[in-house]
């Protein structure tokens, strides 16, 4: 198929950016979206121009590095996938595809489609851990049975890949799905109880400090999340915060 691509180009954080049009032909259905971008970049390089910068690494939907806002949707039109797993079979010959970076005040653009998500790391530094030393002298792994239901729900929350699609898609640029997922993972496990109150307070405070917006229960984040992280996690985080505050 032949496509028109409208891509956000921006030299660096301090420069103005703009949309630039590109034509690409002979795109196969079986290509992933990023393979299509590779082909485009090869063409751009061979013309002596600068290729489009975008983040990507594992290309199997788990590292959370890739981050494109495609036709107005985080990770594009498919559901339950990251940009690297999006395939060109989702598009038709003659389509115009608009490709932008994540847009949020807390995620400044580094270059073109690459953004700085270090705010997510800083929220984790504020409490995204259990304070246990890695001495190997902890108790036996089976000494505290954990109900399967709790372990499974904790796992569902822990599945978050930290890509930032929730922030990008939220009209308030809220990070509450991301933070809620981490808070929930620990809140559901006995190991997380000791520091539960401080954890939720500190992580939420850091989230606010980074300039993320608040949640107004639209639910777009849950729809666009490539890992299907549930809104329940936001509710659980709010409960934990209430519990910690009274």
């Amino acid at each position, binding site marked *: 198929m032949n496509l028109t691509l409208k891509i956000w180009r921006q030299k660096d954080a301090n420069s103005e950016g703009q949309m630039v049009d590109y034509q690409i032909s002979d795109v196969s259905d079986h290509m*992933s979206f990023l393979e*299509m971008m590779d082909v485009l970049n090869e063409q751009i390089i061979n013309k002596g121009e600068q290729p489009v910068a975008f983040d990507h690494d594992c290309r199997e939907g*788990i590292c959370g590095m890739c981050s494109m806002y495609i036709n107005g949707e985080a990770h594009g039109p498919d559901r339950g996938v990251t940009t690297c797993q999006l395939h060109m079979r989702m598009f038709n010959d003659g389509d115009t595809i608009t490709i932008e970076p994540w847009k949020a005040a807390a995620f400044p653009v580094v270059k073109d489609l690459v953004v700085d998500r270090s705010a997510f790391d800083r929220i984790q530094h504020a409490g995204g851990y259990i304070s246990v030393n890695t001495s*190997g002298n902890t108790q036996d792994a089976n000494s505290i049975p954990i109900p*399967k239901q709790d372990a499974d729900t904790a796992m569902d929350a822990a599945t978050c890949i930290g890509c930032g699609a929730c922030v990008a898609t939220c009209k308030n640029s809220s990070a509450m799905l991301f933070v809620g997922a981490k808070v929930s993972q620990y809140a559901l496990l006995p190991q997380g109880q000791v520091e539960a109150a401080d954890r939720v307070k500190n992580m939420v405070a850091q989230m606010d400090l980074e300039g993320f917006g608040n949640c107004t229960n639209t639910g777009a984040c849950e729809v666009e999340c490539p890992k299907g992280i549930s809104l329940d996690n936001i509710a659980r985080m709010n409960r934990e915060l209430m519990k910690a505050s009274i």
Partner: protein
Amino acid sequence: MALDSKVPQGPLKDKWTDYKNKINLVNPANKRHIDVIVVGTGLAGGSASATLAELGYNVKAFAYQDSPRRAHSIAAQGGINAAKNYQGDGDSTYRLFYDTVKGGDYRSREANVYRLAEVSANIIDQCVAQGVPFARDYGGLLDNRSFGGVLVSRTFYAKGQTGQQLLLGAYSAMNRQIARGKIEMFNRHEMLDVVVVDGKARGIIARNLVTGEIERHSAHAVVIASGGYGNVYFLSTNAMGSNVTAGWKVHKKGAYFANPCYTQIHPTCIPRSGDYQSKLTLMSESLRNDGRIWVPKHLKDVEAIKAGTLKPTQLKEEDRDYYLERRYPAFGNLVPRDVASRAAKERCDAGYGVNATGEAVYLDFAASFVRYGTEQAKIQGINNPSDAKIKELGQEIVRAKYGNLFQMYEKIVDENPYETPMMIYPAVHYTMGGVWVDYNLMTTIPGCYAIGEANFSDHGANRLGASALMQGLADGYFVLPYTIGDYLSDDIRTGKISTETPEFEAAEKEVKERIDFFINNKGTHSVDYYHKKLGKIMWDECGMSRNKAGLEKAIQEISDLRKDFWQNVNVPGTDTEYNEQLAKAGRVADFLELGELFAKDALVREESAGGHFREEHQTEDGEAKRLKEFQFVSAWEYKGEPKDAVLHKEALEYENIEVKERSYK
């Protein structure tokens, strides 16, 4: 320099304990004055950074990704081994040790492997304490599954995302130390050289990938935890950015590089579809617990399937060749990876491949749907369930176990694996070779360590499933923190290492010259053009089977390609901005050297062992034929061009395990 593995004396089971009792320690007040650099933040680097910082050292950690949480350990799916014997099925430290040495085709170092097996159980305890949500059974206790090459269930898992959960555990431990200021984290930074002062590793030269700035970082020790070099094949299951540069730079500064030809070609990956393909995707080995591998028994059925006139589900049982169950009745679908991969290649070479390229076999779950479904019907008290009901119940169980893998397959291939068997083919996945280290995990450069996949020590010629995560965390959490202390105890009076020295000056100059060359060369071909060409040579001549003529050809072709690269490579943009092509050019330049050494190592090793299969050396029924005279580690010393590399041999002694013909029949 003669190789000294520094394996402690005494009985195998006491070596590590005795060693720990006798090493020198650094007192807590002195640790504050000692700096350690860790390159890479996967399971090995992340766990090492966190533990060293907890102990009190000042850690500087480097990752090329935008966050330590994205290192490629995150993509490991199936699980992590530990000799817990929770299933009461006869597991023990010795048995894990035995399975690992045998699985590695008797080409790993006994004492290292035993230590690995010994600390494995602690890893699980540690991870649970950190909040890693491993799978549990209804009683609330930890669940296990089986992996290839073993007869027990010792693999712990978190759905098909075990690597992700373990890495997030290590990342959380790092976060705690970053918050305390004990780890200084350098994201989007790449190590471009090691700095050796008075014979000791004392720092690195790194490049900020966002600004292009070249930085000097000093430390009392440098730890390389940068993973494997599978991307030398261009197409592999590694992440796009995975590279050998850190390991190769220390090699060029004096660290020997061991067994580069030992590569793992993983049997269950999604087959390639076209020339534009950028990477291959693994389907976890855990699927072989429940999936059966087959091709049609008759060529006419293969043709019909390819023509689209026959569906695999329509083929009768007696017309299917479950070739692993046929050839290896004892281990069946759970033979080790090298054996399973070669068997798939053998069938596809004989014309039985089931897709358009002729390079695919089936991985079929139909039997497990019936097995689980029947069991569920009993549990739920459903009398005389219909076939459809059984299938539905069985699919629910399979979905709970591998749901994310099935979804990933469907998104990539556009076929529903619940309804039609998966198609799979082997792909490059892991490299057992790496920087040579002694028992202390120190390279031949004093003060320079290599841990995790970046080193060579534990997996011999073939790694068993679910052992990579085990080794990464064992090295980082429980081994290196002891061994590095023994070395650093000599450095308590050294004080801060200055970066204003001729050694740092010279290393930085070299790095800058190379970058200037790339930017100013303005050649005719892109970096990927060379990477793809290199990958094709490697796959064709150094892939699942190798022979003398092919390897000689590969050496010549890679050498020619390297010359071409240094004349005609084209890197757009400047060196003072985010420039992925520039970063990649440096990585491919190093792959072009490693690739040749790889082929040379494969040529010299005139035997078959594990993942290294020399066509000249096979048994009558096509199995790998090891030779006693090759029972050694090949450690290569850098002398300029790869063709001039000098071979050093570390003899492998097996005192606690009988070296036998490896049989899975």
